[in-house]
Protein backbone atom coordinates (compact mmCIF):
# COMPACT_ATOMS: atom_id res chain seq x y z
CA UNK A 1 0.00 0.00 0.00
CA UNK A 2 1.26 3.43 -0.83
CA UNK A 3 2.10 5.89 1.92
CA UNK A 4 -0.63 8.32 0.76
CA UNK A 5 -3.25 5.64 0.86
CA UNK A 6 -2.14 4.60 4.34
CA UNK A 7 -2.44 8.19 5.52
CA UNK A 8 -5.92 8.47 4.05
CA UNK A 9 -6.95 5.23 5.73
CA UNK A 10 -5.77 6.36 9.17
CA UNK A 11 -7.48 9.72 8.59
CA UNK A 12 -10.77 7.94 7.86
CA UNK A 13 -10.40 5.70 10.93
CA UNK A 14 -9.69 8.75 13.05
CA UNK A 15 -12.76 10.58 11.73
CA UNK A 16 -14.94 7.51 12.33
CA UNK A 17 -13.53 7.20 15.82
CA UNK A 18 -14.24 10.85 16.62
CA UNK A 19 -17.79 10.55 15.27
CA UNK A 20 -18.34 7.48 17.44
CA UNK A 21 -17.10 9.35 20.49
CA UNK A 22 -19.42 12.28 19.72
CA UNK A 23 -22.37 9.89 19.31
CA UNK A 24 -21.45 8.21 22.60
CA UNK A 25 -21.32 11.55 24.41
CA UNK A 26 -24.65 12.53 22.89
CA UNK A 27 -26.17 9.26 24.00
CA UNK A 28 -24.85 9.64 27.54
CA UNK A 29 -26.12 13.23 27.76
CA UNK A 30 -29.53 12.17 26.44
CA UNK A 31 -29.76 9.28 28.94
CA UNK A 32 -28.83 11.58 31.80
CA UNK A 33 -31.46 14.07 30.70
CA UNK A 34 -34.08 11.30 30.39
CA UNK A 35 -33.13 9.89 33.79
CA UNK A 36 -33.56 13.32 35.34
CA UNK A 37 -36.94 13.79 33.66
CA UNK A 38 -38.13 10.32 34.78
CA UNK A 39 -36.97 10.97 38.35
CA UNK A 40 -38.74 14.30 38.34
CA UNK A 41 -41.94 12.66 37.07
CA UNK A 42 -41.69 9.89 39.69
CA UNK A 43 -41.27 12.49 42.38
CA UNK A 44 -44.31 14.38 41.11
CA UNK A 45 -46.42 11.19 41.13
CA UNK A 46 -45.28 10.28 44.63
CA UNK A 47 -46.09 13.73 45.92
CA UNK A 48 -49.47 13.59 44.23
CA UNK A 49 -50.08 10.25 45.92
CA UNK A 50 -49.21 11.77 49.26
CA UNK A 51 -51.58 14.70 48.72
CA UNK A 52 -54.33 12.31 47.63
CA UNK A 53 -53.66 10.27 50.76
CA UNK A 54 -53.90 13.37 52.95
CA UNK A 55 -57.24 14.23 51.38
CA UNK A 56 -58.58 10.72 51.94
CA UNK A 57 -57.31 10.65 55.53
CA UNK A 58 -59.17 13.81 56.40
CA UNK A 59 -62.42 12.18 55.19
CA UNK A 60 -61.88 9.00 57.21
CA UNK A 61 -64.62 8.34 59.76
CA UNK A 62 -61.80 7.37 62.14
CA UNK A 63 -60.53 10.94 62.11
CA UNK A 64 -63.07 13.39 60.75
CA UNK A 65 -64.81 15.90 62.95
CA UNK A 66 -68.46 15.37 63.73
CA UNK A 67 -70.02 18.67 64.52
CA UNK A 68 -73.81 18.47 64.53
CA UNK A 69 -73.54 15.46 62.20
CA UNK A 70 -71.93 17.48 59.44
CA UNK A 71 -68.49 17.00 57.97
CA UNK A 72 -66.09 19.92 57.91
CA UNK A 73 -63.41 20.34 55.32
CA UNK A 74 -60.02 18.88 56.36
CA UNK A 75 -61.03 18.76 59.99
CA UNK A 76 -59.60 16.17 62.39
CA UNK A 77 -61.02 15.26 65.77
CA UNK A 78 -58.22 15.34 68.36
CA UNK A 79 -59.94 12.75 70.57
CA UNK A 80 -59.87 10.35 67.63
CA UNK A 81 -56.24 11.02 66.74
CA UNK A 82 -54.68 9.39 69.79
CA UNK A 83 -57.04 6.42 69.75
CA UNK A 84 -56.33 5.64 66.12
CA UNK A 85 -52.55 6.06 66.52
CA UNK A 86 -52.46 3.69 69.50
CA UNK A 87 -54.82 1.25 67.82
CA UNK A 88 -52.78 0.99 64.62
CA UNK A 89 -49.58 0.69 66.61
CA UNK A 90 -51.04 -2.18 68.66
CA UNK A 91 -52.51 -3.97 65.66
CA UNK A 92 -49.12 -3.75 63.90
CA UNK A 93 -47.86 -6.64 66.00
CA UNK A 94 -50.77 -8.88 65.06
CA UNK A 95 -51.61 -9.73 61.48
CA UNK A 96 -55.18 -8.61 61.94
CA UNK A 97 -57.75 -7.23 59.54
CA UNK A 98 -57.23 -3.83 61.18
CA UNK A 99 -53.54 -3.57 60.41
CA UNK A 100 -53.95 -5.03 56.92
CA UNK A 101 -56.67 -2.48 56.27
CA UNK A 102 -54.52 0.47 57.27
CA UNK A 103 -51.39 -0.96 55.67
CA UNK A 104 -53.22 -1.38 52.36
CA UNK A 105 -53.85 2.33 52.25
CA UNK A 106 -50.85 3.80 54.03
CA UNK A 107 -48.10 1.29 53.05
CA UNK A 108 -44.62 2.36 54.16
CA UNK A 109 -45.14 5.83 55.46
CA UNK A 110 -45.14 8.08 58.46
CA UNK A 111 -48.12 10.27 59.23
CA UNK A 112 -48.15 12.68 62.11
CA UNK A 113 -50.23 15.66 63.13
CA UNK A 114 -48.93 18.66 65.05
CA UNK A 115 -50.94 21.47 66.55
CA UNK A 116 -49.20 24.74 65.75
CA UNK A 117 -51.63 27.29 67.12
CA UNK A 118 -52.51 28.09 69.89
CA UNK A 119 -50.48 25.32 71.54
CA UNK A 120 -47.12 24.31 70.14
CA UNK A 121 -45.31 22.26 72.74
CA UNK A 122 -44.87 19.16 70.52
CA UNK A 123 -45.93 16.91 73.40
CA UNK A 124 -46.98 13.46 72.21
CA UNK A 125 -50.66 12.89 72.84
CA UNK A 126 -51.30 16.51 73.76
CA UNK A 127 -50.56 18.53 70.66
CA UNK A 128 -48.54 16.06 68.64
CA UNK A 129 -49.85 12.72 67.40
CA UNK A 130 -48.20 9.96 65.39
CA UNK A 131 -50.95 8.24 63.46
CA UNK A 132 -48.97 5.68 61.57
CA UNK A 133 -45.33 4.76 61.24
CA UNK A 134 -44.10 1.92 59.10
CA UNK A 135 -40.65 2.67 57.79
CA UNK A 136 -39.39 1.24 54.55
CA UNK A 137 -35.80 1.09 53.40
CA UNK A 138 -35.35 4.61 52.13
CA UNK A 139 -37.05 7.93 52.36
CA UNK A 140 -38.23 8.67 48.87
CA UNK A 141 -40.49 11.67 49.22
CA UNK A 142 -39.93 15.03 50.59
CA UNK A 143 -42.09 15.62 53.61
CA UNK A 144 -45.44 17.06 52.63
CA UNK A 145 -47.30 19.31 55.01
CA UNK A 146 -51.04 19.75 54.81
CA UNK A 147 -52.76 22.35 56.99
CA UNK A 148 -55.69 20.92 58.97
CA UNK A 149 -58.33 22.08 61.41
CA UNK A 150 -58.09 20.34 64.76
CA UNK A 151 -61.29 20.12 66.75
CA UNK A 152 -61.49 19.09 70.36
CA UNK A 153 -65.14 18.09 71.01
CA UNK A 154 -64.64 17.91 74.79
CA UNK A 155 -63.96 21.63 75.08
CA UNK A 156 -65.45 22.59 71.70
CA UNK A 157 -62.38 24.44 70.49
CA UNK A 158 -60.60 24.58 67.16
CA UNK A 159 -56.88 24.77 66.62
CA UNK A 160 -54.62 25.05 63.61
CA UNK A 161 -52.54 22.00 62.83
CA UNK A 162 -50.24 20.51 60.25
CA UNK A 163 -50.44 16.97 58.96
CA UNK A 164 -47.00 15.70 58.01
CA UNK A 165 -46.81 12.90 55.46
CA UNK A 166 -43.79 10.99 54.37
CA UNK A 167 -43.71 7.93 52.13
CA UNK A 168 -40.88 5.40 52.27
CA UNK A 169 -40.09 2.76 49.69
Amino acid at each position, binding site marked *: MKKKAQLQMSETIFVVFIILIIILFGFIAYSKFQEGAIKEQQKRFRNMRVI*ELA*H*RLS*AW*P*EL*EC*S*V*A*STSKFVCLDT*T*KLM*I*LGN*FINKSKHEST*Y*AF*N*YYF*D*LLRNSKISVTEIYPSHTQTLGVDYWILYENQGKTRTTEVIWVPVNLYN*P*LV*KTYALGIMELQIYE
Partner: protein
Amino acid sequence: MVRKMRWGKRGFAIQFNWLFVLLGGVVILGFFFSIINNQTVKQEGETAQKSTQEINDLLKVSLSSRDTQKIVSFEKKIAFSCDDEISAFYIGSAYKYSRYDYNAIFSPTELEGTELIVQTLVFEAPFKVLPLVHVTNRDTEYVFVEDAPVITIAYNSLPENVTKSLIPAPLGTIAAYPNNNYDHTVFVLTDESKLAGLTNFDNPNNKAYAVVIKSGSGTVIDYGNITFYFHDSSGFVDNGTAPFLGLDTISGAIISHDREIYECNLKKIMQRVELLAGLHSQRMFNYTNLASAICRDNYPLAQIHLDNIRTYASRRPLTVGDFQVLVGAMGDLKSLNSYLLTKTECPLIY
Protein backbone atom coordinates in the same frame (compact mmCIF):
# COMPACT_ATOMS: atom_id res chain seq x y z
CA MET B 1 -38.63 -23.19 -23.74
CA VAL B 2 -35.54 -24.48 -25.46
CA ARG B 3 -33.48 -21.62 -24.00
CA LYS B 4 -34.63 -22.48 -20.55
CA MET B 5 -33.46 -26.03 -20.93
CA ARG B 6 -29.99 -24.77 -21.77
CA TRP B 7 -29.06 -23.43 -18.39
CA GLY B 8 -25.37 -23.39 -17.94
CA LYS B 9 -23.35 -22.95 -14.76
CA ARG B 10 -23.91 -19.18 -14.89
CA GLY B 11 -27.67 -19.61 -15.28
CA PHE B 12 -27.83 -21.71 -12.16
CA ALA B 13 -25.76 -19.17 -10.28
CA ILE B 14 -28.19 -16.37 -11.28
CA GLN B 15 -31.20 -18.48 -10.29
CA PHE B 16 -29.53 -19.26 -6.97
CA ASN B 17 -28.88 -15.56 -6.38
CA TRP B 18 -32.55 -14.81 -6.92
CA LEU B 19 -33.54 -17.62 -4.58
CA PHE B 20 -31.17 -16.22 -2.00
CA VAL B 21 -32.59 -12.72 -2.42
CA LEU B 22 -36.11 -14.13 -2.08
CA LEU B 23 -35.25 -16.01 1.08
CA GLY B 24 -33.50 -12.97 2.48
CA GLY B 25 -36.57 -10.88 1.64
CA VAL B 26 -38.85 -13.33 3.38
CA VAL B 27 -36.64 -13.33 6.46
CA ILE B 28 -36.50 -9.52 6.54
CA LEU B 29 -40.26 -9.23 5.96
CA GLY B 30 -40.87 -11.86 8.67
CA PHE B 31 -38.68 -9.89 11.03
CA PHE B 32 -40.67 -6.69 10.42
CA PHE B 33 -43.99 -8.53 10.69
CA SER B 34 -42.94 -10.04 14.01
CA ILE B 35 -41.96 -6.56 15.27
CA ILE B 36 -45.35 -5.17 14.16
CA ASN B 37 -47.14 -8.09 15.77
CA ASN B 38 -45.22 -7.68 19.03
CA GLN B 39 -45.92 -3.98 19.02
CA THR B 40 -49.64 -4.57 18.43
CA VAL B 41 -49.85 -7.09 21.29
CA LYS B 42 -47.85 -4.77 23.53
CA GLN B 43 -50.01 -1.80 22.59
CA GLU B 44 -53.21 -3.74 23.30
CA GLY B 45 -51.84 -4.72 26.69
CA GLU B 46 -50.77 -1.16 27.41
CA THR B 47 -54.19 0.20 26.40
CA ALA B 48 -55.87 -2.32 28.69
CA GLN B 49 -53.43 -1.40 31.43
CA LYS B 50 -54.22 2.27 30.91
CA SER B 51 -57.94 1.47 31.08
CA THR B 52 -57.35 -0.44 34.34
CA GLN B 53 -55.64 2.66 35.69
CA GLU B 54 -58.53 4.84 34.50
CA ILE B 55 -61.05 2.63 36.27
CA ASN B 56 -58.81 2.51 39.31
CA ASP B 57 -58.69 6.30 39.42
CA LEU B 58 -62.42 6.50 38.85
CA LEU B 59 -63.08 4.12 41.72
CA LYS B 60 -60.63 5.97 43.96
CA VAL B 61 -62.44 9.22 43.27
CA SER B 62 -65.77 7.48 43.88
CA LEU B 63 -64.48 6.10 47.17
CA SER B 64 -63.65 9.56 48.43
CA SER B 65 -66.94 11.10 47.35
CA ARG B 66 -70.39 10.50 48.73
CA ASP B 67 -73.87 10.20 47.26
CA THR B 68 -72.84 10.74 43.67
CA GLN B 69 -73.85 9.22 40.35
CA LYS B 70 -71.87 9.43 37.16
CA ILE B 71 -71.75 7.96 33.70
CA VAL B 72 -68.34 7.21 32.28
CA SER B 73 -67.72 6.29 28.69
CA PHE B 74 -65.82 2.99 28.67
CA GLU B 75 -65.73 0.49 25.84
CA LYS B 76 -63.82 -2.43 27.25
CA LYS B 77 -64.88 -5.59 29.03
CA ILE B 78 -64.38 -5.54 32.80
CA ALA B 79 -64.45 -8.66 34.94
CA PHE B 80 -64.87 -8.43 38.71
CA SER B 81 -64.04 -11.13 41.21
CA CYS B 82 -64.43 -10.99 44.95
CA ASP B 83 -63.66 -13.62 47.55
CA ASP B 84 -62.63 -13.63 51.20
CA GLU B 85 -58.99 -12.91 50.48
CA ILE B 86 -58.75 -11.10 47.17
CA SER B 87 -61.02 -8.70 45.33
CA ALA B 88 -59.91 -7.61 41.91
CA PHE B 89 -60.99 -6.46 38.51
CA TYR B 90 -59.24 -6.76 35.19
CA ILE B 91 -59.87 -5.19 31.85
CA GLY B 92 -59.42 -6.89 28.48
CA SER B 93 -55.89 -8.20 28.25
CA ALA B 94 -54.38 -6.11 31.05
CA TYR B 95 -51.14 -7.50 32.42
CA LYS B 96 -52.30 -7.49 36.02
CA TYR B 97 -55.34 -7.35 38.23
CA SER B 98 -56.18 -4.21 40.07
CA ARG B 99 -57.11 -5.12 43.61
CA TYR B 100 -59.65 -3.56 45.93
CA ASP B 101 -59.45 -5.89 48.92
CA TYR B 102 -60.71 -3.34 51.42
CA ASN B 103 -63.30 -1.48 49.37
CA ALA B 104 -66.88 -2.51 48.71
CA ILE B 105 -67.70 -2.46 45.00
CA PHE B 106 -71.01 -4.03 44.03
CA SER B 107 -71.05 -4.96 40.36
CA PRO B 108 -72.05 -7.81 38.06
CA THR B 109 -69.24 -10.31 37.45
CA GLU B 110 -68.73 -8.97 33.93
CA LEU B 111 -69.55 -5.69 32.26
CA GLU B 112 -69.24 -4.97 28.57
CA GLY B 113 -70.70 -1.99 26.78
CA THR B 114 -69.97 1.60 25.96
CA GLU B 115 -70.68 3.24 29.29
CA LEU B 116 -70.32 2.56 32.98
CA ILE B 117 -72.80 3.85 35.52
CA VAL B 118 -71.15 4.48 38.87
CA GLN B 119 -73.08 5.32 42.01
CA THR B 120 -71.47 6.06 45.37
CA LEU B 121 -73.32 5.83 48.65
CA VAL B 122 -72.06 5.99 52.19
CA PHE B 123 -72.91 3.05 54.43
CA GLU B 124 -73.86 4.17 57.92
CA ALA B 125 -74.27 2.02 61.03
CA PRO B 126 -75.39 4.72 62.11
CA PHE B 127 -71.89 6.23 62.13
CA LYS B 128 -70.23 6.61 58.75
CA VAL B 129 -68.62 3.29 57.82
CA LEU B 130 -67.37 3.28 54.24
CA PRO B 131 -68.36 4.35 50.76
CA LEU B 132 -70.18 1.73 48.71
CA VAL B 133 -69.59 1.87 44.98
CA HIS B 134 -72.23 0.42 42.68
CA VAL B 135 -71.05 -0.20 39.11
CA THR B 136 -73.24 -1.34 36.25
CA ASN B 137 -74.07 -0.38 32.66
CA ARG B 138 -77.06 0.23 30.40
CA ASP B 139 -76.78 -3.28 28.94
CA THR B 140 -78.02 -4.81 32.17
CA GLU B 141 -81.79 -4.62 32.53
CA TYR B 142 -83.37 -4.53 35.98
CA VAL B 143 -87.06 -5.50 36.05
CA PHE B 144 -88.89 -4.78 39.32
CA VAL B 145 -92.04 -6.80 39.88
CA GLU B 146 -94.16 -4.49 41.99
CA ASP B 147 -95.48 -6.97 44.54
CA ALA B 148 -94.49 -5.21 47.80
CA PRO B 149 -93.46 -1.72 49.06
CA VAL B 150 -89.79 -2.77 49.31
CA ILE B 151 -89.72 -3.23 45.53
CA THR B 152 -90.73 0.38 44.86
CA ILE B 153 -88.18 1.62 47.39
CA ALA B 154 -85.46 -0.53 45.81
CA TYR B 155 -86.49 0.64 42.33
CA ASN B 156 -86.08 4.28 43.37
CA SER B 157 -82.71 3.59 45.01
CA LEU B 158 -81.06 2.45 41.79
CA PRO B 159 -79.24 5.12 39.75
CA GLU B 160 -81.48 7.08 37.38
CA ASN B 161 -79.62 6.13 34.23
CA VAL B 162 -79.78 2.39 34.79
CA THR B 163 -82.07 0.40 32.46
CA LYS B 164 -84.87 -0.34 34.91
CA SER B 165 -88.60 -0.87 34.73
CA LEU B 166 -91.43 -1.44 37.14
CA ILE B 167 -93.96 -4.05 36.03
CA PRO B 168 -97.25 -5.11 37.65
CA ALA B 169 -97.27 -8.12 39.94
CA PRO B 170 -99.92 -10.60 38.69
CA LEU B 171 -98.84 -14.21 38.40
CA GLY B 172 -97.47 -14.98 34.97
CA THR B 173 -96.07 -11.49 34.36
CA ILE B 174 -92.49 -12.76 34.50
CA ALA B 175 -93.31 -15.78 32.35
CA ALA B 176 -94.60 -13.46 29.63
CA TYR B 177 -91.68 -11.05 29.86
CA PRO B 178 -89.77 -10.87 26.54
CA ASN B 179 -86.04 -10.94 25.89
CA ASN B 180 -85.21 -7.30 25.15
CA ASN B 181 -81.74 -8.28 24.05
CA TYR B 182 -79.79 -6.99 27.03
CA ASP B 183 -76.66 -8.77 28.30
CA HIS B 184 -78.45 -9.64 31.55
CA THR B 185 -82.05 -9.26 32.67
CA VAL B 186 -82.50 -9.22 36.44
CA PHE B 187 -85.96 -9.72 37.93
CA VAL B 188 -86.42 -8.20 41.38
CA LEU B 189 -89.39 -9.45 43.43
CA THR B 190 -90.47 -10.65 46.86
CA ASP B 191 -92.34 -13.82 45.94
CA GLU B 192 -90.27 -16.63 44.42
CA SER B 193 -93.41 -18.52 43.35
CA LYS B 194 -93.75 -15.96 40.55
CA LEU B 195 -90.49 -17.22 39.05
CA ALA B 196 -92.24 -19.70 36.79
CA GLY B 197 -90.70 -20.54 33.41
CA LEU B 198 -89.88 -17.70 31.08
CA THR B 199 -92.05 -18.75 28.15
CA ASN B 200 -91.66 -15.57 26.14
CA PHE B 201 -87.94 -15.02 26.78
CA ASP B 202 -85.67 -16.39 24.01
CA ASN B 203 -82.57 -18.13 25.22
CA PRO B 204 -82.75 -17.19 28.93
CA ASN B 205 -79.74 -19.28 30.06
CA ASN B 206 -76.90 -17.08 31.35
CA LYS B 207 -79.07 -14.03 30.60
CA ALA B 208 -81.95 -14.15 33.08
CA TYR B 209 -81.34 -13.71 36.80
CA ALA B 210 -83.58 -13.04 39.77
CA VAL B 211 -83.18 -11.43 43.18
CA VAL B 212 -85.86 -12.24 45.76
CA ILE B 213 -86.10 -9.89 48.74
CA LYS B 214 -87.66 -11.08 52.01
CA SER B 215 -87.90 -8.27 54.54
CA GLY B 216 -87.54 -8.94 58.26
CA SER B 217 -90.00 -7.81 60.87
CA GLY B 218 -88.76 -4.20 61.15
CA THR B 219 -89.36 -1.64 58.43
CA VAL B 220 -89.14 -3.30 55.03
CA ILE B 221 -85.61 -2.12 54.32
CA ASP B 222 -83.98 -2.57 57.73
CA TYR B 223 -82.91 -6.19 57.46
CA GLY B 224 -83.95 -9.45 55.87
CA ASN B 225 -82.79 -12.04 53.40
CA ILE B 226 -81.99 -11.94 49.72
CA THR B 227 -82.00 -15.03 47.52
CA PHE B 228 -80.15 -15.08 44.23
CA TYR B 229 -81.30 -17.08 41.20
CA PHE B 230 -79.81 -17.79 37.79
CA HIS B 231 -81.51 -19.44 34.84
CA ASP B 232 -80.46 -22.72 33.26
CA SER B 233 -82.20 -25.37 31.15
CA SER B 234 -84.36 -26.40 34.13
CA GLY B 235 -85.56 -22.86 34.86
CA PHE B 236 -84.56 -20.49 37.68
CA VAL B 237 -82.07 -22.14 40.05
CA ASP B 238 -81.52 -21.03 43.66
CA ASN B 239 -77.92 -19.81 44.01
CA GLY B 240 -78.02 -19.18 47.74
CA THR B 241 -79.30 -16.68 50.28
CA ALA B 242 -77.55 -13.90 52.18
CA PRO B 243 -78.90 -11.34 54.63
CA PHE B 244 -79.17 -7.60 53.96
CA LEU B 245 -78.77 -4.63 56.24
CA GLY B 246 -80.38 -1.46 54.95
CA LEU B 247 -81.35 -0.13 51.55
CA ASP B 248 -77.78 0.35 50.32
CA THR B 249 -77.07 -3.36 50.62
CA ILE B 250 -80.38 -4.21 48.89
CA SER B 251 -79.41 -2.09 45.91
CA GLY B 252 -75.91 -3.62 46.03
CA ALA B 253 -77.47 -7.09 45.81
CA ILE B 254 -79.65 -6.06 42.88
CA ILE B 255 -76.81 -4.35 41.01
CA SER B 256 -74.49 -7.33 41.40
CA HIS B 257 -77.17 -10.08 41.19
CA ASP B 258 -74.37 -12.45 42.15
CA ARG B 259 -74.35 -14.00 45.62
CA GLU B 260 -70.57 -14.36 45.86
CA ILE B 261 -69.83 -10.74 45.00
CA TYR B 262 -72.64 -9.52 47.25
CA GLU B 263 -71.65 -11.63 50.24
CA CYS B 264 -67.97 -10.79 49.85
CA ASN B 265 -68.73 -7.05 49.89
CA LEU B 266 -71.15 -7.47 52.79
CA LYS B 267 -68.39 -9.13 54.81
CA LYS B 268 -66.08 -6.21 54.06
CA ILE B 269 -68.76 -3.81 55.31
CA MET B 270 -69.23 -5.83 58.49
CA GLN B 271 -65.48 -6.00 59.14
CA ARG B 272 -65.29 -2.25 58.86
CA VAL B 273 -68.36 -1.80 61.11
CA GLU B 274 -66.63 -4.00 63.70
CA LEU B 275 -63.40 -1.99 63.44
CA LEU B 276 -65.07 1.41 63.70
CA ALA B 277 -67.45 0.37 66.48
CA GLY B 278 -64.37 -0.71 68.45
CA LEU B 279 -62.65 2.64 67.90
CA HIS B 280 -65.78 4.62 68.79
CA SER B 281 -66.23 2.46 71.88
CA GLN B 282 -62.69 3.25 73.05
CA ARG B 283 -63.38 6.94 72.54
CA MET B 284 -66.58 6.67 74.56
CA PHE B 285 -64.54 5.13 77.36
CA ASN B 286 -62.28 8.20 77.27
CA TYR B 287 -65.29 10.54 77.20
CA THR B 288 -66.66 8.83 80.32
CA ASN B 289 -63.54 10.02 82.13
CA LEU B 290 -62.86 13.29 80.37
CA ALA B 291 -66.24 14.82 79.51
CA SER B 292 -67.93 17.28 81.84
CA ALA B 293 -69.79 15.75 84.79
CA ILE B 294 -73.17 16.54 83.26
CA CYS B 295 -72.37 14.59 80.09
CA ARG B 296 -70.46 11.63 81.47
CA ASP B 297 -73.42 9.39 82.17
CA ASN B 298 -74.36 9.14 78.50
CA TYR B 299 -71.19 7.51 77.30
CA PRO B 300 -71.27 4.15 79.12
CA LEU B 301 -74.62 3.56 77.44
CA ALA B 302 -73.15 4.51 74.07
CA GLN B 303 -70.33 2.09 74.77
CA ILE B 304 -72.82 -0.71 75.39
CA HIS B 305 -74.55 -0.04 72.07
CA LEU B 306 -71.23 0.16 70.24
CA ASP B 307 -70.00 -3.07 71.80
CA ASN B 308 -73.24 -4.76 70.72
CA ILE B 309 -72.76 -3.50 67.20
CA ARG B 310 -69.18 -4.72 67.25
CA THR B 311 -70.11 -8.16 68.55
CA TYR B 312 -72.90 -8.78 66.09
CA ALA B 313 -70.96 -7.39 63.14
CA SER B 314 -68.13 -9.80 63.89
CA ARG B 315 -70.28 -12.95 63.83
CA ARG B 316 -69.83 -15.41 60.98
CA PRO B 317 -71.67 -16.66 59.06
CA LEU B 318 -73.75 -13.53 58.59
CA THR B 319 -77.33 -14.24 59.60
CA VAL B 320 -80.58 -12.36 59.52
CA GLY B 321 -80.97 -12.96 63.29
CA ASP B 322 -77.70 -11.12 64.02
CA PHE B 323 -78.70 -8.34 61.66
CA GLN B 324 -81.95 -7.94 63.57
CA VAL B 325 -79.99 -7.33 66.80
CA LEU B 326 -77.62 -5.04 64.91
CA VAL B 327 -80.50 -2.93 63.63
CA GLY B 328 -81.77 -2.59 67.22
CA ALA B 329 -78.37 -1.50 68.56
CA MET B 330 -77.86 0.89 65.65
CA GLY B 331 -81.27 2.46 66.30
CA ASP B 332 -80.48 2.89 70.00
CA LEU B 333 -77.14 4.51 69.23
CA LYS B 334 -78.75 6.86 66.74
CA SER B 335 -81.40 7.91 69.26
CA LEU B 336 -78.74 8.57 71.90
CA ASN B 337 -76.68 10.64 69.49
CA SER B 338 -79.76 12.63 68.45
CA TYR B 339 -80.52 13.22 72.12
CA LEU B 340 -76.97 14.54 72.71
CA LEU B 341 -77.27 16.74 69.66
CA THR B 342 -80.68 18.25 70.34
CA LYS B 343 -81.05 18.25 74.11
CA THR B 344 -77.52 18.72 75.46
CA GLU B 345 -74.21 20.48 74.80
CA CYS B 346 -72.30 17.22 75.20
CA PRO B 347 -69.79 15.90 72.64
CA LEU B 348 -71.44 13.69 70.02
CA ILE B 349 -70.83 9.98 69.73
CA TYR B 350 -70.20 10.13 65.99
